[in-house]
């Protein structure tokens, strides 16, 4: 029994071991199948759509990758985009007869030089660009030559469908799509990284109207160039920015320097009487003068070797509104003396006149102003001489003079619902007085030609002689006009300048701003106001006249507020 028992026990032991092993093995297998089953359910039932959709999306994304983002205007009109083109390269190591190959290629692409191509193909390199961005027809003809060493690589070429219209704003790129000018340069990194288009604040319809009217005036007065800016006074957004002459950015390589020069932002000019806007604003803001102050403008001022005289001399005592209306240099210089050099400099700095503009263009003028701000500088700066800024500087600051006193940095990027934060530079009361003064100039003063009936235009003329080799030339003028509309509740600043206009018969030989620049502004405003949804009003209506009423005539009590220094 004991044997049987011992036999039994050994057998039983072996069986137990086997069973345990089986159990462990079975459990492991079951666990493995369980894992597989769970994963199967997970993948088929729950995780079905996730990965497959992702892979599709990735597929499309990689295939339609673009080299550079588009640039569009505020309404989404395409200003710059990429097109895929074929570029021809040669592999000299696979070309047996470079001369014959070169001759054949030049037969198809006549703009290449045969000797040059032959020389390039005789090297022992493996890759040589022969011609970039071919048209489909050229590509077909090169293929038809059947020379094995020629091959194509598809490239993205930057194209500007609107050509000259926005050339100075958008700029252009090199053949390798690196931004070289304009928005293409200042947003180079963003454009090459992101895929969403860059939306500018420009409206091409307004841009076109500005460009057309300016170009017509340049031809009419035989000017060498000009600029035009339309700026939203409530946001600082630039709606149009024109500089003429301009160029075709699709062929930017072969353009003369003068055409590439952006007169509206890169040009720094002494803009003349336009600065009386700022002189008057400072005087009214600081209390140095009031709208009823009067100044002696009977005879020119002599300071050192300078002589300050009036272009439209009245030869009498003038009120502050009259100084503005007749654009009296004498009166403005005397007002500036009442303001004082330190105060004038501080306000000019506040108005952004002493630093580069905030606009997103690499082509930026550095303002030129006296290092030591002497009394004579103060007097000349009052009427816009001795300080040179870009037209955009003036447009930006003029917007602050009429919008209630807030200076918004000028921008080319559409802000939409989040406008840039402005900075108060003058009080709302002063701004309100400036509106009346600006309206006065267009209604009764030097800017009558800028009027656009119904749109209550206000503005100021500026005619300055150009400095050539340190001397002022009386026959080379910068004629400018800054207009604002509607003066009852200003919405847009329209600024333009003409470079060296010549007097014609129709203007009685004058090339001054009132004859050359002001009509451009008037015509532009008449055409763009409907685009902005600004309805014309009856300018003779009593409530509008009350808003803009101003007392021009000198008060009876001469002597009050008189400044004679």
């Amino acid at each position, binding site marked *: 029994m004991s044997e049987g028992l011992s036999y039994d026990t050994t057998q039983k032991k072996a069986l137990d071991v086997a069973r345990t092993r089986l159990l462990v093995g079975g459990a492991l297998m079951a666990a493995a199948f369980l894992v597989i089953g769970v994963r199967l359910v997970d993948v088929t039932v729950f995780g079905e759509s996730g990965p497959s959709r992702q892979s*599709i999306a990735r*597929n*499309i994304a990689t*295939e*339609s990758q673009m080299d550079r983002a588009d640039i569009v205007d*505020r*309404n*989404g*009109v*395409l*200003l710059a*985009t*990429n*097109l*895929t083109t074929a570029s021809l390269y040669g592999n000299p190591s696979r070309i047996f007869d470079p001369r014959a190959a070169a001759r054949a290629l030049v037969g198809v692409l006549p703009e290449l030089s045969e000797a040059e191509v032959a020389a390039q193909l005789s090297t022992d390199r493996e890759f040589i660009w022969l011609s970039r961005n071919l048209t489909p027809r050229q590509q077909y003809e090169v293929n038809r030559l059947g020379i094995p060493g020629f091959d194509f690589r598809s490239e993205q070429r930057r*194209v500007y*469908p*609107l*050509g000259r*219209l926005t050339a100075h704003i958008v700029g252009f790129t090199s053949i390798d799509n690196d931004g070289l000018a304009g928005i293409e340069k200042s947003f180079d990194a963003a454009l090459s990284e992101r895929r969403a288009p860059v939306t500018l604040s420009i*409206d*091409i*319809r*307004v*841009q*076109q109207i500005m460009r*057309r009217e300016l170009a017509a005036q340049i031809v009419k007065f035989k000017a060498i160039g000009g600029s035009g800016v339309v700026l939203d006074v409530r946001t600082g957004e630039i*709606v149009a920015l024109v500089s003429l002459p301009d160029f075709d950015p699709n062929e930017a390589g072969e353009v003369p320097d003068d055409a590439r020069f952006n007169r509206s932002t890169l040009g720094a000019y002494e803009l003349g009487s336009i600065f009386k806007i700022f002189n008057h604003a400072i005087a009214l803001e600081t209390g140095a003068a009031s709208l009823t102050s009067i100044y002696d403008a009977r005879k020119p001022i002599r300071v050192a070797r300078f002589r300050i005289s009036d272009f439209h001399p009245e030869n009498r005592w003038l009120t502050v509104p009259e100084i503005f209306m007749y654009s009296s240099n004498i009166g403005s210089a005397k007002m500036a003396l009442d303001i004082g050099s330190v105060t004038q400099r501080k306000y000019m700095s506040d108005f952004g006149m002493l630093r580069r503009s905030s606009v997103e263009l690499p082509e930026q003028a550095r303002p030129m102003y006296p290092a030591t701000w002497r009394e004579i500088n103060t007097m000349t700066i009052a009427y816009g001489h001795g300080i040179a800024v870009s037209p955009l500087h003036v447009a930006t600051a003029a917007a602050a003079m009429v919008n209630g006193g807030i200076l918004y940095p000028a921008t080319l990027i*559409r802000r939409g619902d989040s406008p840039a934060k402005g900075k108060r530079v003058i009080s709302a009361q002063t701004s309100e007085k400036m509106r009346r003064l600006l309206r006065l100039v267009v209604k009764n003063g030097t800017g009558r030609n800028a009027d*656009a*009936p*119904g*749109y209550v235009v206000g503005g100021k003329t500026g005619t300055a002689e150009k400095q050539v080799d340190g001397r002022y030339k009386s026959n080379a003028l910068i004629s400018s006009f800054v207009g604002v509309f509607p003066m009852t509740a200003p919405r847009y600043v329209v600024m333009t300048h003409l470079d060296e206009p010549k007097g014609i018969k129709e203007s009685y030989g004058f090339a001054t701003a009132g004859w050359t620049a002001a009509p451009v502004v008037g015509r532009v405003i*008449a*055409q763009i*106001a*409907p*685009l*902005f*949804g600004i*309805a*014309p009003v009856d300018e003779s209506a009593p409530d509008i006249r009350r808003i803009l009423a101003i007392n021009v005539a000198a008060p009876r009590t001469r002597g009050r507020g008189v400044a004679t220094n």
Partner: protein
Amino acid sequence: MKRPAALILFALSIFAGGALFSVAFEVSELDDRLIALNEEITRDRDAIHVLRAEWSYLNQPERLESLSRRYLDLQPLKGSQFSEIAALPMRPLPGIVPAAAPPEEAAPAEPDTPIANAAQARPRVKPATPRRPSRYLLLASQPSPPRSAPSVKPATGMNASDTAALNASLRAIIGNGAREAGGMPR
């Protein structure tokens, strides 16, 4: 007992294998289709891109201006051509003659003035202010003398329906202009 089980297992495994293969083929077919579709999408996208560039090119404002000068008789709008609805005289609905209105006012406006046509193309215009009696239907008659000339003169060779269509589109332009500059449909 054992044989049928084995048979069933065998059959099942054959079935499973067949199903696996058919699924595999289906997947590879779908994959091919996916690739083809992706290619098509890319091609279409490129084509759209080229067409957008071409659209922008063909819509160069300068080109449109020269085309408009050649084929249309449109002029830029003048301030004097705008008026408010409230400033327009009223015409009563047919059948309702207000006692105060003299018969001359009830006469229809000249048929070939564009603003009148525009108003006819839009028969139900609500009065500008709720205070005005609703039985009046607005119909523009030219408020000012010929100085505010019609913006569309019927060009030679144009018939009346052409002029009406032009005026309708002109009205659309004016209507859009009243919105924010950024909100214009393109």
